[in-house]
């Protein structure tokens, strides 16, 4: 039940995010689906107690691969799909905790959390990079 709720909310949240960026109506559901795939992987790994950096990395990879496929199928720029899928992975919670600790003068904790947020952002970036590499080498093999 919880997993189903997570799927549903991630789909709706990603599609709603696409709407904020003026993604045309026809492409909102695919954008939501890309976000749902990423969140499914992130949530599943989180439940399995995987390292959050690993979970974020694989989720970002999944979002970008799904977005590449959608972009080719539906002939739209990839940005339309991957942006709304990447957003849920942004380490908002960790960044918030870091900032809260700054406000409370707990700088030691704040630095740790800020670094964690930085690492998680790096994981997102690396997922995007790797998907591009996979995409390019796949195209080379096919050509």
């Amino acid at each position, binding site marked *: 039940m919880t997993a189903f709720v997570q799927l549903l909310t991630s789909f709706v949240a990603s599609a709603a995010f696409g709407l904020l960026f003026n993604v045309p109506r026809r492409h909102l559901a695919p954008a939501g689906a890309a976000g749902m795939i990423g969140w499914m992987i992130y949530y599943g790994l989180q439940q399995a107690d995987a390292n959050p950096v690993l979970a974020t990395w694989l989720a970002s990879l999944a979002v970008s691969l799904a977005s590449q496929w959608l972009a080719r199928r539906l002939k739209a720029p990839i940005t339309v799909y991957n942006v709304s899928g*990447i957003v849920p992975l*942004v380490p908002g919670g960790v960044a*918030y905790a870091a900032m809260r600790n700054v406000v409370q003068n707990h700088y030691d904790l704040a630095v740790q959390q800020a670094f964690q947020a930085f690492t998680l952002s790096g994981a997102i970036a690396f997922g995007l990079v790797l998907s591009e590499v996979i995409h390019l080498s796949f195209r080379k093999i096919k050509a």
Partner: protein
Amino acid sequence: MPQSSEYTRRIAGLCLLAGKIMIENGAETYRVEDTMTRIARAYGLPRSHSFVTPTGIIFTIEGAEGEGADSFTSLSRITNRATDLQKVMEVNAISRRIGAGELSADDAYRLLKETESGGKGYPAWLKTAAAAVASGCFLIMFGGSWNDFVPAMAAGGAGYLALICASGRIAIKLFAEFVASFAVGLLACLFVLAGWGRELDSIVIGSVMPLVPGVLITNAVRDLMAGHFVSGLSKGAEALLTAFAIGAGIAIVLALRGGVAL
């Protein structure tokens, strides 16, 4: 085929317009450069060079004799940047049609002008509603309880509305995000004080998500990957500063509350 310098000038203007619309509305740098080069090639000018950054585009078309007197360079300054993926898609579609030889230069120019002056996409109320729904959903995704769903929706929607209002009125970059996140924090605090919401942290994290500069983050990475370091670094800086602005708005609310954990 020898082209007159007047023709070259017109095509360069067309390419710059297409590039300007794309960069103003959140396209990646490589897509902008690719589109401009393709349009120039489709109109019989195979040798062109572009230098695209988030704050300006420089575009050169070489004439028939190579790098001689008949090459033409022009610059377009970019001052306003927003995110409107619909416009990026429209320019993309126009460029595809140009590539297929379906459009004359005049028709293409007219279509691009229409896209540039076109509507602002979805109405503000719909975007606010979407931000509200997204905030509630993010709250649940981040492990919040359903008790806080409606407060998160209200705070997130109000925050996004504040962003729309503030970005129209204040010319200073990033201040709108600051105002919006301040509104989110303030409302979340009030809801918790009034006993309407339970966990302040979850409500704030969920409601602040619609302000996250998602397009900037992904485009910064994609630009850096493609070797567009100037664009990538400046987009990354903009994303980081936006994140700081959001953080500062929340931090002030927390500090006003006395900085004590509930």
